């Protein structure tokens, strides 16, 4: 089996995945899931581990997984109820399993009785009594033929009459004859007396029988083995004329080839040297505990930033050790936070693995053939992100299958392969995760998109958008790409909602399309939703946080660069383009803020949704990493606020949802248009504005 050594790598990688699955499913079980699929999935995972263990002759692992599997089998069919004790046993058994896999992989020895206590408990649950020694019987029993051949030659007379069922199972008498021939000298006599007249023959029936005479050194069981698959589908009689080795015909006890004849569980605990704790390189930790740890580290970060803030003007020469200590504290805190965050990192596989099923179901429904390829499924992100990416990915895949890929006929006509290709990939890039979903379908119909965008007033008549702008119109609010409503993409949720949900997570999404060749969605997200880099700003004495990834720059605009549209929209001219301004104090109805943008500060932020906009605040306080806290766990959602954080002084500061802020400011303008002060704004300005902010070109202007 040495050439099979190469598969061990695959096997252990697979084990790692399977054990991961087991863990996921077990936690579902422990939180009260009654989905029968959960136990089936655990069973399958353990089963696969066992199969490989058998193949690679990891006896201890095979033996243990066999017992574990037996327990799961009984639980999944309800013979053993799934109780809290049972689930706890499953958890511990899976720990043992992990440790055994680990030891097999690292070629380290576990003690012979490792896990025997759990085996005992399993046995009590399965058999109602403790019978650990019997545990590994099955695995030792793996059948490998006795190679010691009997030298005696036997003449066997075999009467073989196939039944119809034999053919229904796709067995073939001729192959059986051929196999018998390999055992020795064979003569065959067909018996045709059962053969009906031709007209009455049923193709499905079996009428021919044989009598064979086999002269062979093979033992009876070897001869019988030839008929192994058909014993119940035929009448069979084997008699040996010269029973020279009658004893051989007794049931043979298969001799195990598997290394150690004493199975691990059979070995008395003391017999294998000192009982040392097994080398376990991973431990299972309750998710709640990790979350608590993450929260506490978050608190620590806040406390640390509070300390640095309050001691920032400490003269270093007077308190050298204090200042150095604080610097080290900052460093260690950051490192600690990173390490803790790393604990919660999970591969995106758990989400990707759900997609083949989706694709299969959709392709059946749409009657399109689809090949799904996933790349980079081991890319890790924080679990908070994992929980959130499933919906957008699902949606984009639906979109690709429904709108992107052509039907089979159309594809063939176009000279494309019959089956469409959809690829999901994930990778890390610049501290973020990039997920792409691409297809080789028809791409975006720009003509249709542009027409619709114009129809809906999403884009002004005078403006000629670039291809890229047109493609990304599918994310515009209220834009539905579906020519007709299908039960796949449905009505309701459009790509605009997908984009908004992604943006709410601090992510971005865009589409690149190549007409006739396909399209690709690109979604980037932060690696975690637990912390973020934020710019702290102040307006009317209150502090707010603007996500750094959205910020382009901040400036104090000269008066001359400020303009106002008849709609009341204020604009700032920056390097030749007009950028709309949102006044935070107006949006949030704050009194006492600086109202003149020339006196205040403009933070330019950008988003796929609206392009670039300037948020007017009183001043910038500083940049820091902030811990993201949900407002909604104890309160309702607040328009314009995505979440909150806790600042160094222990106070809560809202984190701005810049897309929502932009929407509110636009809505406010429409609801209470300022008296038209200046009509002096030229068409050129309008056009320039439309170019920077296609969606700003509201029909209310014309």
């Amino acid at each position: 089996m040495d050439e099979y050594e190469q598969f061990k790598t695959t096997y252990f990688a697979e084990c790692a995945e399977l054990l991961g699955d087991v863990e996921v499913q077990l936690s579902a079980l422990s939180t009260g899931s009654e989905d029968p699929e959960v136990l089936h999935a655990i069973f399958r995972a353990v089963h696969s581990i066992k199969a490989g263990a058998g193949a690679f002759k990891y006896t201890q692992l095979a033996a243990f997984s066999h017992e574990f599997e037996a327990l799961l089998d009984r639980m999944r069919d309800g013979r053993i109820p799934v109780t809290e004790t049972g689930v706890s046993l499953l958890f511990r058994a899976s720990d043992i399993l992990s440790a055994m896999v680990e030891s097999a992989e690292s070629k380290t020895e576990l003690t012979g009785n490792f896990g025997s206590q759990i085996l005992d408990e399993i046995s009590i649950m399965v058999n109602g009594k403790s019978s650990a020694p019997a545990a590994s019987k099955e695995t030792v029993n793996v059948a490998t033929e006795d190679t010691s051949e009997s030298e005696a030659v036997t003449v066997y007379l075999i009467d073989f009459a196939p039944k119809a069922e034999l053919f229904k199972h796709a067995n073939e008498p001729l192959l059986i004859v051929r196999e018998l021939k390999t055992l020795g000298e064979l003569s065959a006599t067909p018996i045709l007396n059962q053969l009906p007249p031709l007209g009455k023959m049923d193709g499905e029936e079996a009428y021919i029988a044989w009598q064979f005479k086999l002269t062979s050194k093979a033992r009876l069981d070897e001869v019988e083995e030839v008929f192994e698959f058909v014993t119940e589908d035929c009448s069979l009689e084997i008699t040996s004329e010269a029973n020279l080795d009658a004893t051989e015909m007794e049931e043979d006890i298969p001799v195990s080839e598997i290394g150690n004849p004493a199975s691990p569980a059979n070995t008395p605990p003391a017999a294998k040297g000192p009982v040392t704790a097994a080398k376990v390189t991973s431990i299972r930790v309750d998710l709640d505990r990790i979350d608590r740890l993450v929260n506490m580290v978050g608190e620590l970060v806040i406390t640390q930033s509070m300390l640095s803030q309050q001691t920032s003007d400490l003269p270093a020469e007077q308190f050298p050790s204090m200042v150095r200590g604080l610097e080290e504290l900052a460093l260690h805190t950051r490192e600690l936070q990173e390490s803790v965050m790393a604990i919660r990192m999970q591969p995106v596989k758990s989400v990707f693995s759900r997609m083949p099923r989706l694709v299969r179901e959709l392709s059946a429904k749409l009657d399109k053939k689809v090949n799904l390829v996933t790349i980079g499924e081991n890319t890790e992100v924080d679990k908070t992100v994992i929980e959130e990416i499933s919906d957008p990915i699902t949606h984009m895949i639906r979109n690709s299958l429904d709108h992107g890929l052509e039907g089979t006929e159309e594809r063939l006509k176009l000279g494309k392969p019959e089956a469409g290709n959809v690829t999901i990939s994930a990778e890390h890039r610049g501290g973020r995760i990039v997920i792409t979903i691409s297809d080789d379908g028809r791409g975006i119909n720009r003509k249709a998109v542009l027409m619709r965008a114009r129809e809906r007033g999403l884009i002004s008549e005078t403006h000629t958008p670039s291809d890229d702008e047109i493609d990304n119109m599918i994310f515009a609010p209220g834009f539905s790409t579906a020519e007709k409503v299908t039960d796949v993409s449905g009505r309701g949720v459009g790509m605009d909602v997908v984009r908004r949900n992604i943006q709410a997570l601090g992510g971005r999404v865009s589409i690149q399309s190549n007409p006739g060749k396909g399209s690709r969605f690109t979604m980037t997200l932060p690696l975690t939703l637990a912390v973020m880099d934020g710019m702290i700003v102040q307006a009317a004495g209150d502090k707010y946080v603007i996500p750094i990834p959205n910020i382009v720059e901040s400036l104090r605009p000269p008066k001359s660069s400020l303009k106002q549209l008849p709609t009341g929209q204020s604009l700032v001219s920056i390097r030749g383009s007009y950028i709309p301004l949102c006044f935070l104090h107006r949006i949030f109805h704050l009194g006492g803020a600086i109202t003149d943008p020339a006196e205040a500060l403009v933070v330019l932020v950008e988003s796929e949704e609206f392009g670039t906009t300037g948020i007017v605040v009183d001043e910038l306080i500083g940049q820091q990493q902030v811990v993201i806290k949900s407002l909604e766990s104890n309160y309702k959602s607040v328009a314009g606020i995505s979440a909150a954080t806790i600042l160094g002084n222990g106070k809560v500061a809202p984190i701005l949802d810049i897309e929502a802020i932009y929407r509110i400011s636009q809505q406010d303008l429409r609801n209470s248009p300022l008296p038209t002060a200046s009509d002096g704004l030229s068409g050129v300005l309008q056009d320039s504005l439309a170019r920077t902010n296609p969606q700003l070109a509201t029909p209310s202007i014309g």
Partner: protein
Amino acid sequence: MGKKVLAVDDSKTMRDMVSFTLKGAGYEVLEAADGLLALDALGNQSVDLVITDINMPNMDGIGLVKALRQNPAYSSTPILVLTTESDDSKKNEGREAGATGWIVKPFEPEKLLKVVQKVCG
């Protein structure tokens, strides 16, 4: 031209090993990770043998055997089920569904080849 075998197993290790063994013996091997994918992979092309694991997500081996037997195109294609079950219940379940034979895991290359030869020559 070697005979064509479809190997169905949710465990990549097993698929790889079965495939490696069979290819080494001159068979052409198609692979699929579960019953539904197997049906997808088959399309309507004919194969000389299907080897399938029993425990798989989405559509298990028994389901696959039944589905294949219902299709006239595969009613006489030999199907082997891979089983580790010591008891005969799985073998019988497979047989009742229409399987031709079974291979008892753990995986043994020689044994696999022997059984494959037995049912498809």
